[in-house]
């Protein structure tokens, strides 16, 4: 456990130190920083695991609220002698490419986002659509009436991939189902990720119309969807981390039957591990095959039968029998 809430910089190397003793790792969070119980925290978990298991030392920074100084964070970390630096979130895109040119000896790793042509930038992507596909399958199996909904924070590429995969998963079970799709904000407007009240109202409308399962990919707004589900006595699925575990409220745990897991922690840990062993990190797409994405079963809301079917679909995707697209 941290001694003071994660704001400490460097830590003693871990006892069971691996071969990465004293490697300096930098981590620049997405807006919001540590403590979002989702994306950022997941990255933090990955680096803390690396600290424990590999004996690295790390330093973390968060951007200012308008996200205008992401490049500065990277420079600050590079100047601080960190050999490998993570930028969490696709918004690091161009900033990281620019800074990478300035520090050719530093390995940069971006979590999520467009591919980069820089030598020293590795982009870790997640097959969100594959994980969402499985949630879609689960949703279709959980529902009796076949009314299913999706609530997205906005219309950015990441959320679109969630929506697309989810709909394909639903269709794989029953292609007559039309998934209701609501986005809380337009375009890339991030306000939809902070609008729990809006999330609740939108989800309530869906449940009022008879929807039985809603998959939500809207950051902080997810909790509104869970509230609506609890009110309606219906199902909801979360995103990024295992929201059954993180939501903290037993009433909401009752309705979260699964979450689309995005193992940012794995990506961070493995990147460090690879860097230690090979001195270089390659861009990778984490998908179902390496458990980079997946689904959670906490709460045991899904029956054995459903889980068996999910595992079946999962295998088909890994085997390439089912092709999931990230676009609709």
């Amino acid at each position: 456990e941290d001694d003071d809430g994660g704001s400490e910089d460097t830590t003693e190397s871990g006892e069971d130190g691996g071969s990465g003793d004293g490697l300096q790792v930098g981590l620049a969070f997405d807006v919001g920083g540590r403590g979002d119980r989702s994306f950022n925290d997941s990255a933090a978990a990955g680096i803390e695991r690396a600290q424990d298991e590999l004996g690295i030392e790390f330093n973390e920074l968060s951007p200012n609220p308008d996200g205008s100084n992401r490049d500065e964070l990277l420079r600050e970390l590079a100047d601080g002698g960190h050999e490998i630096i993570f930028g969490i979130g696709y918004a690091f895109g161009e900033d990281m490419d620019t800074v990478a040119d300035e520090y050719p000896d530093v390995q940069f790793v971006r979590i999520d986002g467009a591919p980069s042509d820089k030598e020293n930038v590795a982009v870790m992507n997640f097959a969100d659509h594959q994980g969402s596909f499985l949630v879609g399958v689960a949703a279709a199996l959980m529902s009796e009436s076949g009314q299913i909904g999706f609530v997205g924070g906005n219309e950015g590429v990441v959320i679109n991939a969630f929506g697309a995969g989810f709909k394909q998963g639903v269709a794989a079970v029953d292609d007559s189902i039309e998934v209701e799709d609501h986005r809380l904000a337009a375009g890339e407007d991030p306000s939809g990720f902070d609008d729990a009240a809006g999330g609740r109202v939108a989800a309530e409308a869906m449940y009022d119309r008879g929807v039985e399962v809603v998959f939500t990919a809207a950051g902080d707004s997810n909790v509104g969807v869970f509230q609506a589900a609890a009110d309606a006595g219906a199902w909801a699925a979360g995103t990024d981390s295992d929201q059954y575990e993180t939501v903290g409220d037993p009433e909401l745990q009752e309705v979260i039957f699964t979450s689309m897991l995005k193992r940012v922690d794995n990506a961070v840990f493995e990147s460090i591990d690879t860097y230690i062993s090979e001195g270089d990190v390659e861009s990778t797409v984490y998908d179902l095959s390496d458990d980079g994405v997946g689904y959670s079963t906490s709460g045991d809301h899904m029956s054995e039968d459903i889980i068996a079917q999910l595992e079946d679909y999962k295998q088909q995707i890994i085997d390439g029998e089912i092709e999931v697209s990230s676009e609709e």
Partner: protein
Amino acid sequence: MTRVSRTQRILLIIALGFIALSTVRAITGEDVLTSSGTARAMLILALPIAMCALGGLVAERAGVINIGLEGMMILGTWGAGFGGWHYGPWGALLGAVIGGALGGLVHALATVTFGVDHIVSGVAINLVAAGLVRFLSEAVYAEGEQGGGPTQSPPIGAARSFDVPILSSGPDLLGRLERTDVIVLSDIGGVLRGLTSGLTVFALIALALLPLAWFVLWRTALGLRWRSAGENPVAAESLGVNVYRMKYLAVITSGALAGMGGLMLVLFTGSYREGMTGGRGFIGLAAMIFGNWRPTGLAMGSGLFGYSDAVRLRAQTSAAVLALLLLVGLILAAVGVWDLYRRRFVLSAVLLVLAGAAVLGWATLDYLPNEITTMTPYLVTLAVLATASQRLRPPAADGMRYRRGEEH
């Protein structure tokens, strides 16, 4: 214009608007326009705004402009999260009120005691509040207490809701009315049912604050002194009214009310989250000006905003938002015809052209991009303001620095 005729006029406008709305509902078949769910959502989305607007009202009636409502609301949400975590929903109420009131106290100190420009102080409070809540969370939830963190409180659970018996549950009379599918009648049923179901004690408290504020401000001795500080503080002081005290009281109350707005959000979503206010404090300020510094007016302004927000959030497709376009077109046409009758030709022509464009848009478009639908509440508010020509009457000494003994 006497008072009676103003109330009557407002009622008439509401009635006409409602008939137009149910006509549009019938034409387009978009039940979401008047469904009970929409009405309920309207109430829920409008209340936080209305609380901020009311906060703005009580401050400005005492002559202090409060652009810091957003910051006070932020403090309210944090206070609600903290209080709720420790002591449940009532603790949340207490926390929200204290949080907001502290913001108000700072504003009062700056504007009343130190005579700082009201807008400067409000803007500064917005800045400080946004940063402060992060600090507080770091200090209080650092250990990740039961799901809390630097950006959120532990879950405190949403407030329990209930339906009004007989009307909206059990025999559900209003529900039956809503299902009759008779124009106007079913719409009335839907709206009333929405307003009488899914209520919480806290929503009722917030609702009650609107008439209560009216009563205190316009029917009590305290209220008279309160308003006198905003109309003519020098006169008030000369009659022995302690203007500073009135202003302090007003601004602190204002903060507490903004905090109540924050409470509404926290109780609706079950926990405090950083950034959850999303600019509602500013919308509240706008709603208050929309309402011409009156409780009924600000309730209408908040309601209008909440309604259009509810429609776009609840709509299954953008057709419902298009139906609102038809409604706006009809209203514009009506006002245009009225202006034609009043021989204001240019204005009437502009309005009729806009009305034509709106109706044409409704008839030809079959889809609106999300960029447009998310603008709905803002566009509707602007459209209504532009049609209803406003004669605003802020308190005479609103925003003025008042120093005891200086008489300019």
